[in-house]
């Protein structure tokens, strides 16, 4: 086939690798960004997209591999260097200075000057207005940035990119928080950029947007480059297959159990702007996986059920009894436990000892006449440390000194010691080594075997598919699919999570 000679790429990552501690975030990843082309970067949560973007932005320095700008190898020692090389990054939630005017946000550190090196405010406003003209949007350069919608904030960031003649614009899930009309406007702006010869790297989970906007795509999986090529001959399903395409391992041993009566019954739960009309049940002995993309509203549903956040509509029944919403105390009394997503911030008091942490949810039971017995705390912690095989030098050591996996076991012990009837676990194995991961899975499986209803939120598809008796999938705040174990495949779950429910 005869191809016209490709224009030379503006920016190339060549064989880039980056690790954080033991986690290999990127290994041997290459990508080339060409003038006038919109390039999509695809991959599941945790595939390494953010790391790649931050490498381009000069925030991360690659461990190995090269960064080439106009064919010349460069080394970014900070965001300012990447900016100087003409690379602009627009983050999902732009970082603006709310107290400063839009124009000052656009020209931070590069304000036009007049005599005596004073800032020429008039010229700055005129330049900014001219940039907005080019983008075809109407914003007052003199108004403060505080209070702008996310879409407008992104426009300000794009104007900033234009103002220093950025030749590469990286957009990290720019459409996640936008309305349909705002997305349209953003696409118009991107077309303007492309027409002006800018290379665009576009990260999005919404495949229809990718096909509407981009000419080329690169797919990452587990920090590795798995495919790149033009999009014209591709289908959404084909891309999803490339993004997941993984063998299910035998790491996840879910014992078969007979589902008993319904323990958790969530009916039409709605929190405006966050999730809408979410209904599901979890039975005794069942593990129900809650899947979906980051930001789909899974954690928010869990928080609402546990009473941390209020809801606008809907009700929850535990063990057939109506739960008073908006009160974690009531949720705990009803027999719900919540192992939160962020272990260190929300699950533990990291500076307190292991035994204190284990006892934290059982203080009422452990105290007499309002006084806490140190010995009963210790006894409780010893029991559970043994059962869950928590590895620590001594139970009096601060929880912060434990490995991630053992910290997670401490959080689990805290709830299990209350003998919950419903346990909600949010990303139970994130950041945990493989061995401990298997132990956590075994534990969850045993719990289900003992008749606990387990709701497991997880972004790891293999984990969901291996562990769950049923998989619920959320997409943009709605429950879009309920898949029994037998029908749950990576493709079906991933497609549902991307908003494409198989009929």
């Amino acid at each position, binding site marked *: 086939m005869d191809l016209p000679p490709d224009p030379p790429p503006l920016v190339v990552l060549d064989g880039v690798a980056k690790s954080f501690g033991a986690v290999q975030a990127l290994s041997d990843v290459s990508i080339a960004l060409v003038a006038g082309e919109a390039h999509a970067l695809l991959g599941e949560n945790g595939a390494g997209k953010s790391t790649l973007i931050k490498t381009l932005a000069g925030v991360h320095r690659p461990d190995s591999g090269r960064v080439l700008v106009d064919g010349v190898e460069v080394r970014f020692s900070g965001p300012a260097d990447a900016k100087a090389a003409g690379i602009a990054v627009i983050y999902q939630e732009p970082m603006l200075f709310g107290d400063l005017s839009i124009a000052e946000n656009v020209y*931070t*550190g590069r*304000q036009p000057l007049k005599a005596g*090196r*004073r800032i020429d405010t008039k010229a700055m406003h005129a330049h900014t207005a001219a940039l907005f003209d080019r983008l075809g949007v109407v914003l007052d350069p*003199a*108004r*403060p940035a505080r209070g702008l919608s996310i879409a407008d904030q992104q426009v300000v960031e794009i104007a900033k990119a234009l103002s220093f003649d950025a030749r590469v614009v990286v957009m990290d899930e720019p459409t996640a928080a936008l309305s349909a009309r705002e997305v349209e406007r953003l696409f118009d702006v991107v077309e303007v950029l492309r027409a002006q010869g800018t290379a665009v790297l576009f990260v999005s989970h919404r495949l229809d947007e990718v096909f509407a906007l981009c000419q080329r795509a690169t797919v990452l999986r587990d920090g590795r480059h798995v495919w790149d090529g033009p999009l014209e001959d591709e289908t959404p399903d084909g891309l999803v297959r490339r993004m997941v395409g993984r063998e299910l391992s035998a790491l996840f041993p879910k014992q078969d159990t007979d589902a008993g009566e319904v323990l958790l019954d969530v009916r039409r739960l709605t929190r405006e702007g966050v999730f809408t009309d979410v209904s599901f049940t979890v039975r005794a002995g069942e593990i129900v996986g809650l899947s979906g993309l980051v930001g789909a509203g899974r954690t928010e549903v869990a928080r609402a059920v546990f009473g941390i956040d209020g809801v606008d509509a809907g009700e929850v029944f535990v063990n057939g009894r109506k739960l008073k919403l908006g009160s974690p105390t009531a949720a705990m009394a009803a027999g719900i436990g919540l192992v939160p997503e962020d272990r260190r911030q929300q699950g533990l008091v990291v500076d307190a000892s292991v035994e204190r942490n284990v006892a934290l949810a059982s203080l009422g039971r452990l105290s007499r006449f309002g006084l806490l017995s140190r010995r009963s705390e210790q006894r409780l912690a010893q029991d559970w440390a043994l059962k869950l095989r928590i590895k620590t030098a001594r139970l009096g050591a601060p929880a912060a000194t434990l490995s991630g996996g053992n910290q997670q076991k401490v959080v689990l012990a805290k709830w299990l010691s209350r003998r919950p009837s419903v346990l909600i676990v949010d990303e139970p194995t994130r950041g945990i080594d493989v061995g401990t991961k298997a132990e956590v899975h075994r534990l969850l499986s045993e719990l289900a075997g003992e008749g606990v209803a387990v709701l497991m939120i997880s972004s790891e598809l293999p984990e969901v598919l291996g562990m769950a008796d049923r998989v619920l999938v959320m997409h943009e705040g709605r429950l879009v699919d309920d898949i029994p174990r037998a029908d749950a495949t990576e493709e079906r779950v991933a497609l549902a999570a991307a908003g494409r429910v198989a009929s």
Partner: protein
Amino acid sequence: MTTAAPSRARRVADLVGRARELGIVVALALVVIPTAFVNPRFVEAQGIRDLLLNASVVAVLAAGQTLVVVTRNVDLSVGSVLGISAFLTAQTFADHPGMPIVVGMLLGTLIGLVCGAVNGLLVAVGRVPSLVVTLGTLYVFRGVDFALAQGTQINATNLPDELLAMGNGRLFGIPVLVLITLAVVAAAALYLRSYRSGRDLYAIGSNPEAAVLAGIPVPRRVFTAFLLSGTVAGLAGALWVARYGTVDAAAGTGLELQVVAAVVVGGVAIFGGSGTVVGAALGALLLGTIASCLVVLRIPAFWQQAISGALLIGAITVDRLLALRLARELRGRSDHDG
């Protein structure tokens, strides 16, 4: 289409910005006018000169403090810096009777610069919270001051006459110290408004994380803010000598709280990002004027502190309410109407 007419959002923001300074002017009128009825001499030329003179030291310090506070930091050591600078300057004048006044002023300023550099290094490079650093150096500088002074006091008789003449002198009917204060305030205001590094200070206070991503050299800018605050406090120490003539190691004790109060009353957000030097200086004038009015109205001295404190709380409350209101206004109406 370019926006020609200023948007509603801009107008609201402008209005609130001006309201802060305007509010102080109104408050000033509210305290001065009734006092003038009780004692007309209060608003005669000499009375007004005294008001300005009394406020000038705090106003100079407030100008320096504003630079620090807009970066979301605070400099509590300014009173001690003033003290050590005042004492050393006075002592040098006493030991070297022939020394030109300008040299003495520069010496005081230099001492302040060194103190400011210590604060700046600890905050910007050592990454210690400024509240802790400057609370520490508040005691350190004062302690060094006492150690150097060893209980001595330097009196007007030991100081050059020209210095004291400057302290009480006038130019075109305006006290020289007030003119110097105006110059410092004008310079600081110009720096914060019209220079890139000055605007960076606002950016840092507004969103520290974004400031790093925007490539602003945050540690260097924060260091500079503390350096300038210290320098200004050093200059204020030298002016203190000229004004009062009698200096011991306790000069300026407790002044830092008046300064912070003036800055906050003047509309500088205590969490950084907004506020002006002119506002802070007006805040100093307002607090000083209230103190003078209470004297004229023969209100017992201990009420003065309570009233100043209540005013401070009132100012912060109004400031928060205005900020919340502004945020709501800005969010409420989209700006697409232009």
